[in-house]
Structures are given as structure tokens and as C-alpha cells.
């Protein structure tokens, strides 16, 4: 008796991130129904995301909630809690020993503890990482990335996906420019190459320079009418 093994090719054409994007759309639906604008805040570790969040909380004039993403601990959430703003911490260490980014499912699992009905703006502070967070939509309206001048002017070329999917680039730590050989023109030239005409704000969370422009941007984002598809 002969046995023949028959091989079949099955055409699939399914996006690898489709499952994530479906959950991201579900999140977006929840945010839209509650009338909440959502910002996904991303950067390399130590570029100043949390400091820039803290800098705007006092004077924003918009009800803000924060969702903190870190591999471990609640250091950032504790800092934000000190400003009397609803904050939820997501730790990614239960997944794969420390997932390096937030995905739509992680954000969805945290939503029950976010008071969407009591806020107009939700800032999701992503895990510090210039690579992976750019790949995973979580249901945000806007992507804001922070690039500190201490990181050097070649970052846009090295991490094009992060820079080109940003709606706003916050160039942080400008108070340190006199102490650095950072070439701002060169940085902006590289930024133009990967994301032409992207909005950018020069800030220093430490001195407060540019923070009012950052607040203005957030106020406009929170009150902008979003077109429903």
C-alpha cells in the first residue's frame, strides 16, 4: 500500500498586526464614545516623557488622565499621581519577560481602571524605546515623540519609523544646548528627510521654555472635532 502525502498551499494575505489593529479600533471606539482624545507619547528611555507630562499638568486647563507603560515598577505613575491626575500603571513584565512596548491588548486590559467619562484627554506614556512602540497602534488619535538634544542629530535616520509616524516631535532639553556639540540644523535636516513638515516644538521640561506651546498643542488636540469614518 502506497501512502502519498498531499501538500496544499493556502493563500492567506493577513496582516501580522491585524489582531492588534482590531483591538486598537475597539479601544478607539471606546475613546470616541467617551469623547476622549488620546495621545501616544513615545521616546527613547530618559528623553523626558514623564518630565514633559509633569510640566504641562498644572496649567493645561483640560481634564487629563494618564496611562503609564513600563516594564516594571510604578515610579512614573507615582510621579504623576503627585499631581492629582487619574493615572493607571501598566507593567509589561508579565508578557514574554518584559515586553518592550505597549500593544492594543495591554491598553485595553487597563481601560476598566481609566475614568474615561471624567477626562477629555488621555496621555498614554509608552515604554521608553525608539523601535517597537512605533509598530503597535493602541487606538490613539495622535502620536507624539520626544527626542532630546542629548541623543544626537542622527536619530531620525536611525529610527525612521518612529520619527515618520509622529504627528509632533518635542525637541527636549534645549537648555543643555550650550554644553553640547549637537547640530540642531542637521537634526532638523534629517527630520525633514523622514517626516517632511512634521510639527515640532523646542522645549525644556526643566526650565519651562516651550512648555506653553506644548500645552497649546494639547489644548487644540483635545478640542479638535474628530471626523468619524
Amino acid at each position: 500500500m502506497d501512502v502519498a502525502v498531499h501538500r496544499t498551499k493556502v493563500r492567506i494575505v493577513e496582516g501580522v498586526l491585524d489582531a492588534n489593529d482590531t483591538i486598537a479600533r475597539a479601544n478607539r471606539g471606546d475613546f470616541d464614545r467617551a469623547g476622549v482624545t488620546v495621545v501616544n507619547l513615545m521616546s527613547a528611555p530618559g528623553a523626558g516623557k514623564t518630565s514633559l507630562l509633569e510640566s504641562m499638568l498644572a496649567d493645561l486647563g483640560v481634564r487629563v488622565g494618564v496611562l503609564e507603560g513600563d516594564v516594571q515598577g510604578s515610579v512614573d505613575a507615582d510621579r504623576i499621581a503627585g499631581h492629582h491626575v487619574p493615572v493607571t500603571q501598566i507593567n509589561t513584565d508579565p508578557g514574554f519577560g518584559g515586553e518592550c512596548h505597549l500593544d492594543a491588548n495591554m491598553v485595553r486590559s487597563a481601560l476598566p481602571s481609566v475614568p474615561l467619562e471624567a477626562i477629555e484627554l488621555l496621555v498614554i506614556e509608552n515604554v521608553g524605546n525608539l523601535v517597537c512602540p512605533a509598530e503597535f497602534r493602541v487606538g490613539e488619535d495622535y502620536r507624539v515623540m520626544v527626542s532630546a538634544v542629548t541623543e544626537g542629530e542622527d536619530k531620525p535616520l536611525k529610527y525612521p519609523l518612529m520619527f515618520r509616524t509622529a504627528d509632533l516631535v518635542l525637541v527636549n532639553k534645549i537648555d543643555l544646548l550650550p554644553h553640547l556639540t549637537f547640530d540642531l540644523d542637521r537634526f532638523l535636516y534629517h527630520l525633514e528627510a523622514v517626516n517632511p513638515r512634521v510639527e515640532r516644538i523646542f522645549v525644556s521640561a526643566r526650565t519651562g521654555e516651550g512648555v506653553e506651546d506644548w500645552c497649546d498643542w494639547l489644548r487644540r488636540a483635545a478640542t479638535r472635532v474628530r471626523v468619524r469614518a
Partner: protein
Amino acid sequence: MHELSLADAVVAIARDHARGRRVTSVEVKVGALRQVVPDALVFAFELVAAGTNVEGAELEIEHVPARVRCARCDLESDVKAFPLACDRCRGLDVEITGGDELLVESIELDEEPLTVASSRR
């Protein structure tokens, strides 16, 4: 390493369509604009597939070049490096028409072994 998350999704999609049958190969399309290191994806794929009906399957990666359509002169052209500019007029007002893919294109399955009829009377 996010190739692990991506590999997890690739294996899940393959298993979903294989419905218990053994998978011998998985073809994926990875656009040039995605941040995927092919070796890392293959390595992660093998890790995730271990112990499942996808174990031992070959991961075939087809690289798709970045392609843009110029809003100014309507030309569609391949792009090899940033800036994403029209090949003819160097305009930056372009729509990305290729290179953003991250797809499971197809899988190859072993069907149930067939018994070829023998000359039995």
C-alpha cells in the same frame, strides 16, 4: 525584542488557517519600511513554533521595496533610502504605495496522508 511578538502573531495566523494540519512552510511579506530583522524573525518563529503543528516549517520572507506615488507628477517609483522622494521630480509630497507590508501571504500544509489504491481483490 519585538520580532517575538510578530512571530507569535505569524504562528497564530498559520495555526488558525491550518486547523490542526501540519504546516511545512509560511510565506511572509515584509516591507522595507518595517523594522524587522529577518534573522531575528526566523529565530523567533522557530521558538514560537516549537511544540505546535507549525514546528519545523520554513519561514520564507519576501522583501517588498518601498514604493511611492508622487502627488505632483503622478509617477510611481521605488525608493531605496530616505527621504521618500519621487524618482523624477524629487518631490516629497508622496503617498506610500509599497513597503509598509507585514503580511502572512500563504502557508503550505500537509493534508491527511492519502492511501493510494492497491490492487486488492
